[in-house]
Each structure stands twice: as structure tokens, then as C-alpha cells.
């Protein structure tokens, strides 16, 4: 078990998420935001601007003359894409090399996050258009809590394995049982600390239990993330120690009005895009680390 204070200490110890991206995300749902605004917010942060432009000029977005400014990038790729690129660039700056408790490295974490973002946008588009626009960015940040939970889990790695192996528990429940908290709850603490929008914090907090989200919009967004997260796990966009030991809540799927077979269409149409996005954002989906067998 860990205390709220121990969590707070570790949250404080994380590298600080770039203030420019936090400022940008405040405008995530602002219908008035313009390309000029985005440029003005990011301009003081040269490192981040350079990263964003590099991504905007990647082959993912096809050939064509390169964009030289954030404003041009917004004009060409759209606001939502820029929010996503800025968020992923910010995330890349704060990721630790390895998340030992989950048995993955930064690239695998980024890969999973990017894939959830793509699937969330697609699930949103079909089943919850009112949250489609924020789904991608929320997807990138949904598992932030793992950055802090990882080290605590690692200290209890033997108990973690026993629980996963012998009891077929969901990884989230194992976190709760061993630590008294989970990566959803802690993710929300991180979002607050980094001054990210409340909607993003609630998405992180409740993506495994959408029914607990306190308002209709975040409930909807969490439902989308929950389904997207499930898709990444069953289609190999996650290779952590929990394997498939996570729940897919049938009521959540039903709440989105997804008919049997519906998810198969989403997957068939988005898997190639998810793979390309993972590669573009510097993620990779390596082979699971081998268990040593005597």
C-alpha cells in the first residue's frame, strides 16, 4: 500500500510537462481558437515547435512542400492534428526510459498511447461524434498514471506476478490491491499537477471505469477510450506485463450503441493508420520481453 503523500512526492518529481502544451490544451475545446493563436502559444517554446514541425513534415502526412511554421501546419493539417502533435511532442519530453513495473520501455508506452489515440478518434467518429475532436489527444494522455505507478509496482514485482498468474485478476485491480490506488487515479493527479484540462484529467481517471466519471461528457469520452484501449490490447498494440488481463465492460460497449461486428469494421479500417501513427510518434511495439524458463 502506498499513501497519498508518497504518490504526491512522485508526481512532483516527474519532469514538468511543457507549459506551452499545457497552455495549448486549455484551448482544446475552444471553437474560437485560430492558427495564429496556436502559433502564438507555441512560439516561445522553440524545442517543442521544432518537434511539432518535424512531425508535421513526416511522411505520415504525405509528400508536398514542407511546412515552415506552426501556422502553416495548422492550415494544412487542421487544429485537432496540431493539438495531437503538440501533445505527443510534450509527452516524448517527459517519458522515462523505462516503465519497469509494466515491463515496457518508453517506446512501447508511446506506441500504445498513439494507437489508443487513433482508435479513440475512429470509435468517436462512428459512435460518439460529440467527443470525436478531443478523443485523439485524450487517448495520448490516458495512461499517464503509469509514469508514477510503474516504480511502485516494480518494487512489488514478485507479488504482481503471483496475482496476475494465479488469480486472473485485471491489472488495474492488482494495482489497487497491492498499492491501494491505480494508474487512473494517479493519472488524474498528474494532470492536475501539470494544469491540464479537467476533461483530460477525468479521461485519465476513469478510462477503465467510465461509469464512474462524474459528468456526461467525460463519461462519453471515457467510454470511447475504454473501447479503444481494449482494441489496442487485443490487436497487439500493447505488450505490457498484464497481457490481456484487463476488463472490457460490456455495458460500456452497449452504451455507445456498438453492434456486434461494429468493432471489427473499426479495426479493419484503422489498424494500418494506427501502425503508421505509432511509427511517426516514435513508438514501437517490440516483442514481449522473454520470460526466463528454467
Amino acid at each position, binding site marked *: 500500500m502506498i499513501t497519498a503523500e508518497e504518490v504526491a512526492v512522485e508526481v512532483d518529481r516527474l519532469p514538468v510537462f511543457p507549459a506551452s502544451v499545457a497552455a495549448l490544451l486549455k484551448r482544446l475545446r475552444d471553437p474560437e481558437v485560430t492558427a495564429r493563436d496556436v502559433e502564438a502559444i507555441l512560439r516561445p517554446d522553440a524545442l517543442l515547435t521544432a518537434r511539432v514541425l518535424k512531425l508535421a513534415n513526416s511522411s505520415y502526412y504525405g509528400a508536398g512542400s514542407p511546412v515552415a511554421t506552426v501556422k502553416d501546419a495548422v492550415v494544412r493539417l487542421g487544429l485537432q492534428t496540431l493539438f495531437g502533435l503538440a501533445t505527443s511532442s510534450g509527452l516524448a519530453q517527459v517519458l522515462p526510459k523505462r516503465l519497469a513495473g509494466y*515491463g515496457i520501455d518508453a517506446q512501447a508506452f508511446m506506441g500504445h498511447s498513439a494507437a489508443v489515440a487513433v482508435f479513440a478518434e475512429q470509435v468517436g467518429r462512428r459512435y460518439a461524434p460529440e467527443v470525436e475532436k478531443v478523443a485523439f489527444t485524450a487517448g495520448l494522455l490516458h495512461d499517464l498514471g503509469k509514469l508514477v505507478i510503474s516504480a511502485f509496482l516494480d518494487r512489488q514485482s514478485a507479488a504482481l*506476478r503471483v496475482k*496476475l*498468474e494465479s488469480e*486472473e485478476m*485485471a491489472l488495474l485491480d492488482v494495482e489497487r490491491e497491492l498499492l491501494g490506488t491505480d494508474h487512473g487515479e494517479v493519472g488524474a493527479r498528474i494532470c492536475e499537477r501539470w494544469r491540464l484540462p479537467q476533461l483530460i484529467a477525468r479521461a485519465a481517471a476513469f478510462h477503465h471505469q467510465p461509469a464512474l466519471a462524474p459528468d456526461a461528457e467525460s463519461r462519453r469520452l471515457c467510454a470511447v477510450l475504454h473501447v479503444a484501449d*481494449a482494441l489496442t*490490447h*487485443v*490487436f*497487439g498494440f*500493447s*505488450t505490457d*506485463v498484464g*497481457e*490481456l*488481463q*484487463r*476488463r*472490457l*465492460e*460490456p455495458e460500456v*460497449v452497449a452504451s455507445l450503441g*456498438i453492434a*456486434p*461486428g461494429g*468493432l*471489427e*469494421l473499426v*479495426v*479493419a*479500417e484503422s*489498424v494500418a493508420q494506427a*501502425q503508421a501513427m505509432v511509427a511517426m510518434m516514435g513508438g514501437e*511495439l*517490440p*516483442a*514481449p*520481453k*522473454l*520470460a526466463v*524458463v528454467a
Partner: protein
Amino acid sequence: MSAQPAATEKRQVVGIGELCVSDQADTVLITYALGSCVAVVVHDPKRRVGGLLHYMLPQSKAMPEKAVAQPGMFADTGVPMLFHRLYAVGCHKRELVVKVVGGGHLLGAADAFDIGHRNLEVLDKVFARSGVFVAARDVGGAVSRTVELNVGTGRVTVRSHRKEHVL
């Protein structure tokens, strides 16, 4: 048992929704993180030919263009294509050793959304129709599997985070 490949081994990765047939005895076909996807692993011990398909979804009916562009994505198009490739290099159905790996599921996944289960169900139908006998399987459960086939020896190794075994 060692997970390290011999120095002379060539490793050929089969991606999601792809298939591969090889007659190179020094080659290992490998596919990662199967989740609810299914690997059909075929070996011809006489000719030392191996084939591996990593399909994602049971049926292509609702997505005919996808099935044309990437037949390996679906059981109903990928499995026939895998066997045709094997026949094209001289294999015979009755001499093939067929193993099936994957088809896992999340905890609590409702039936209609249990893609792993549907993947296995459709495969059984395809095999029953065409008279293919399955020699071994490691399927189902909340497990994500990585599988490799040694084309020379026919040895099939299945790994997950917590264990490794020969199938």
C-alpha cells in the same frame, strides 16, 4: 530451453494481417503479440517448408475491398491463401502439420465482442469444410502470445510474458 536463435538463423517477421511461406530451412518465421488474433502455423516435414498466417478478424463479408487489398487480415480469405501458397510449392494437404495459436480475450468481454472466440470459431468451420486436421493448439485465455516456427525442424515455440513452451 533457450530463447536465443542460433547464429545462422534468419528471422522473418510476419506482421499483423500478413502471411509468409518459406522453404529456407535456416529460417524462423515469427509473429508477435497475437492477442485476439490467430496464427495458423503449418509445416511440411518432408519438404521442410513452413507457412505462417497472422489474421485479425474472422470474416471479410462486410469488408470486401479490405479482403482484396489484404487477404491475410481475415480467416476466411487468409487461410485459403496460405494453403494455396503451400500447394504452389509442392505441399500436399495430408502431409502438413497444422498448429493454431492465439485467439485470446479480455476479461469479461461480452460474447458479441469476443473477437478471439469468433476468430477460432470461423477457423474451425474453414478447417472442417476443407478437411484440415489440427495437430496442436494453444488458444484462448487472457494471454497475448508470440509464436515462432523453425522452418527446418518444424519446431513451434509459443511465448508470453510469463512462460515459454514448445507446441
